[in-house]
């Protein structure tokens, strides 16, 4: 039997993207001994791929912007399914979180008067995204990474050990959370995982765990997500007895690369449209004018002339329809392609070449220029790009208390993409990076306060659970070798893409659920070759079990929600329903499967409701709900 490495911490943060690093910084600043456990090297998290920016109503470019406007945009984008309190906290705190990054050394692009510049993005009323060209996520990760290094330098000076208070366990994967009771009771007592480099098992004894593992995109074939996005935090939370909500809402980003096939899905930033890029079909028509839904009719331009006028004079022109929220644009592209007006490789054309001078394109969109040049031999300053929808983000995640990030399991916290509620049925571009900062900090703080309140009475780690976690993780080596994890993964991706993708219907989702059952039983027969040292086949076998649970959550919730809203479009229920708006679907584990229950959405208090006009609210809400508004308001 191999050795098990042991560590004791106050707070263990799983995931080293924006949310995880910000949570860890907070826990360390609260004086808690903090471990950061991440599947990749430090500084490689998926956050580096975020391009556009971090939305924060600083009002640097348009002074009319403030948290109330940002709050309104976020609720609209999520089609009013967002947890109002999260949207409120997010809009209020995002500016402070962005400014704080500057004090850690971040260098955002500037306005003429030397402030942080802000750019336009889909669904945001004013220019709101703090950015660095089109590599904002990289800037954020590097800044947070370097802040952690600076804390370690302080600890080196005061404790003689850089890792005394905060340590990164890179290339380490957590496979189980530990509790001092069974799945339905008890508090978090730690976590078990393995280190890729040597296959050694590691036990973290800790009363508080913050999940910050990101999304689930690797369950879909066409995705902008990196290999880490296997829903680990979602699955760990469920297995530990926490609840997931909104799992039916998966965002398909409207613009992913479609050619060459091997790069299909790689993101083309929304900034291309924010900076003036337009979508055209094979008939050279700017088709987005035909797809402005009733709820957004008032805010979007009806002619090309008005739309083009908006970039320079947003006061007297309405926004171009290319800047509708992502769900709307993705569906529009999908329809154009389906109706035979697509580009040669099955997308539509995204044209920036005819809209901006070549120099400006290279300056504002350097990564896009580079990406198309290197991977597709396309010069975007000369020709249009071919783009189509790609699985990008999951709105659903661990159900948390908005203020502290606490899940229903004592000691278990979550932040960022793996938590749910903030974005409702659809996330606005730019609201993710700011979400990571606002709720990463809050979860780190919540975890620290929880540990503080526990005092010396820490939940104990059960050796039996550690042993059983280890046996489960090693099980793929004992398989009869009948199944190859890579093949099962490819089959899962095809199933989710074809049957629970951007447009859904009952029969197809049911077909997906029956295929998922087959995949689950095939996964039990996986046999892994080689040993435990840096063995990708073994790693995938473990990640697959998470992807299968999470995919089942998505499919089951998608089957139950009989309406179309945001990142959930039902061909057989094409309309948005007032009644369904009041409902969250909540996933819990049941046997080796998933149970989904309806749960009422938390009610928005009147002072926030009154930020909208009644006409607009009536498009989303029942008369009953609006009756709490004071008469004559708006």
């Amino acid at each position, binding site marked *: 039997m191999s050795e098990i490495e042991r560590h004791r911490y106050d707070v263990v943060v799983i995931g080293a993207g924006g949310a995880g690093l910000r949570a860890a910084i907070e826990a360390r600043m609260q004086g808690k001994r903090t471990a950061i456990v991440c599947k990749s090297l430090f500084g490689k998290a998926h956050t580096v791929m975020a391009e556009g920016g971090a939305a924060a109503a600083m009002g640097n470019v348009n002074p009319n912007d403030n948290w109330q406007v940002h709050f309104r945009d976020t609720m609209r984008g999520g089609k009013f399914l967002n947890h109002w309190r999260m949207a409120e906290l997010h809009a209020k705190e995002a500016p402070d979180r962005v400014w704080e990054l500057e004090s850690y050394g971040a260098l955002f692009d500037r306005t003429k008067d030397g402030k942080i510049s802000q750019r336009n993005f889909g669904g945001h009323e004013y220019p709101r995204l703090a950015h660095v060209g089109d590599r904002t996520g*990289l*800037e954020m990760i590097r800044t947070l990474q370097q802040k952690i290094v600076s804390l370690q330098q302080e600890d080196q000076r005061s404790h003689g050990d850089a890792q005394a208070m905060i340590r990164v366990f890179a290339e380490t994967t957590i496979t189980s959370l530990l509790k001092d009771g069974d799945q339905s009771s008890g508090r978090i007592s730690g976590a078990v995982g393995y280190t890729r480099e040597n296959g050694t098992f590691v036990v973290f004894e800790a009363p508080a765990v913050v999940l910050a593992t990101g999304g689930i995109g690797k369950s879909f074939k066409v995705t902008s997500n990196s290999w880490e996005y296997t829903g680990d935090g979602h699955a760990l939370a469920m297995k530990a007895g926490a609840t997931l909500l909104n799992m039916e809402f998966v965002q398909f980003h409207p613009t992913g690369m479609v050619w060459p096939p091997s790069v299909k899905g790689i993101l083309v930033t929304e900034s291309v449209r924010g900076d003036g890029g337009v979508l055209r079909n094979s008939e050279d028509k700017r088709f987005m004018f035909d797809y402005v839904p009733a709820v957004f009719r008032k805010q979007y331009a009806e002619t090309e002339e008005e739309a083009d006028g908006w970039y320079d004079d947003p006061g007297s022109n309405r926004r171009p329809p290319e800047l509708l929220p992502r769900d709307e644009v993705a569906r529009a592209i999908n329809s154009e392609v389906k109706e035979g007006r697509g580009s040669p490789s099955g997308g539509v054309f995204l044209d920036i070449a005819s809209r901006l001078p070549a120099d400006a394109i290279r300056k504002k969109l350097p990564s896009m220029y580079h990406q198309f040049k290197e*991977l597709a031999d396309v010069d975007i300053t000369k020709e249009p790009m071919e783009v189509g929808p790609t699985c990008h983000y999951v709105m659903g995640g661990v159900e948390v208390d908005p203020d502290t990030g606490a899940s229903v399991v004592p000691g278990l916290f979550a932040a960022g993409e793996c938590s749910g509620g903030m974005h409702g049925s659809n996330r606005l571009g730019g609201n993710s990076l700011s979400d990571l900062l606002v709720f990463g900090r809050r979860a780190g703080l919540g975890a620290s306060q929880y540990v503080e309140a526990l005092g010396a009475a820490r939940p104990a780690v059960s050796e039996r659970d550690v042993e059983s976690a280890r046996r489960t993780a090693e099980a793929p080596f004992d398989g009869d070798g009948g199944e190859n994890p890579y093949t099962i993964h490819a089959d899962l991706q095809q199933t989710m893409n074809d049957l629970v993708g951007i447009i859904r219907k009952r029969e197809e989702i049911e077909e997906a659920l029956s295929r998922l059952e087959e995949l689950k039983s095939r996964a039990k027969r996986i046999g892994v070759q080689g040993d435990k040292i840096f063995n990708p086949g073994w790693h995938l076998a473990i990640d697959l079990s998470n992807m299968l649970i999470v995919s089942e959550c998505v499919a089951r919730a998608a089957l139950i929600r009989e309406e179309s809203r945001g990142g959930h479009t039902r061909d057989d229920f094409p309309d948005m329903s007032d009644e369904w708006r009041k409902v969250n679907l909540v996933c819990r584990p049941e046997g080796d499967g998933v149970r989904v229950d309806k749960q009422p959405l938390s009610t928005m208090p009147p002072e926030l409701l009154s930020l909208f006009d009644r006409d607009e609210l009536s498009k989303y809400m029942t008369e009953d709900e609006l009756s709490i508004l004071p008469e004559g308001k708006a």
Partner: protein
Amino acid sequence: MGYKARFRVWRGDDTDGGLEDFSVEVNEGEVVLDVIHRLQATQTPDLAVRWNCKAGKCGSCSAEINGQPRLLCMTRMSTFTEEQVVTVTPLRTFPVIKDLVTDVSFNYQKALEVPAFAPPVGVAPGEYRMQQTDVERSQEFRKCIECFLCQDTCHVIRDHEDNKEAFAGPRFFIRLAELDMHPLDSMDRKRRSQEQHGLGMCNITKCCTEVCPEGIKITDNAIIPMKERVVDTMYDPVVWLGSRIPRRSAMAANRALDSGDAAAAEEHARSRLRDKPSDAAALGALQDALVAQGRFVEASDVTRTKLEHAGRGRGARQRAAADHAWALLCAAEAGQIDLDRYDDEITATLQQAQRLASIGTVLAGTHALHHLVHGRLAEAAEHSREALRWDRSRQTRADDLVTLAEALTGLGNRPEGESAMAESLTLWPANPRAESARSNMHEMGLQPR
């Protein structure tokens, strides 16, 4: 549209490994990483490779493709012909963990040694004001995706494990430059750059700039301006010498060798080794001093010690093994040792070097000499010609020409042999092999073939 490509992939761990051949399908538009993934899915499920985004943004999939440091995800298969063998090996400067995955912790250690951004005193968050033109200089360096290809290619550490302690490498020179040029950073980093991070050891060959996938002008925009700033603000020879004292004798040895005084070089090196018998720099200097005097047997004793003490870096171990094989072969060629007695050691060492080598061709010159001392003249000629296609430095080129000259003469092609020898001597007149090679050629010329 698809075709079968020939791939050679280095597989192994930090103790042993070698190149394995594969035939694998390639489709339109694919990059090398796609092909590696196909190998995992269909032939070698436990082939270790690091990757994340597959879009050139995370800098995880760094490796060497046909000997060139590259991102696997940004190297399109269309850059090779269908017949061309694609050789994929791990980064050479860092120790191998498994297959294409290396231990890059060196870089994280160096990151910890660079003092963080020092925020301006009395400026609250939200009150920072900077002009775009002023932030742009540092923004260029913040494009860095930490792929560490610049660290991998840098000769200061690529084959010199012993330089790693004192040298932060190009990635951290741009970090230092970034902070130094940050409009609001309140710390002076110039003196530190020279004293603590080894900026002075960089001899601006621009290799780092060439491999940077982000196109950062590392040398021109970071290293050279930093060197100029360092010179402007400090030049204190006493401080400079003080920081070099532990390595002073080894450096003196190198200086002596440069001026042609091999005996003095030997003495300096031996004096350093009396204090620290495993000092890699001094062992290297002693080896060079002995070789320069044609004392190949003693040189091979030194290379043996060097091999025993080589660190975990694959590049350094490969170089130590290659040096040792070379020293023994030179001794055999000069008739200073009995080939039969040493041939097992030579063959084993050569194999070890070959396993660790990035590409098959780098040891062609050593193989050529091995064939030569065994009298396999045709093979010797063929391998030395192969080696000459890859040789970059004057001395290795001169050396491989000597081998070719002997082989050709032995094969009866005396004119070409003589001309190879002449070319060799113009490149490196003092080549210690030249004398024995000339006498071998003379003897071979006398024997009728």
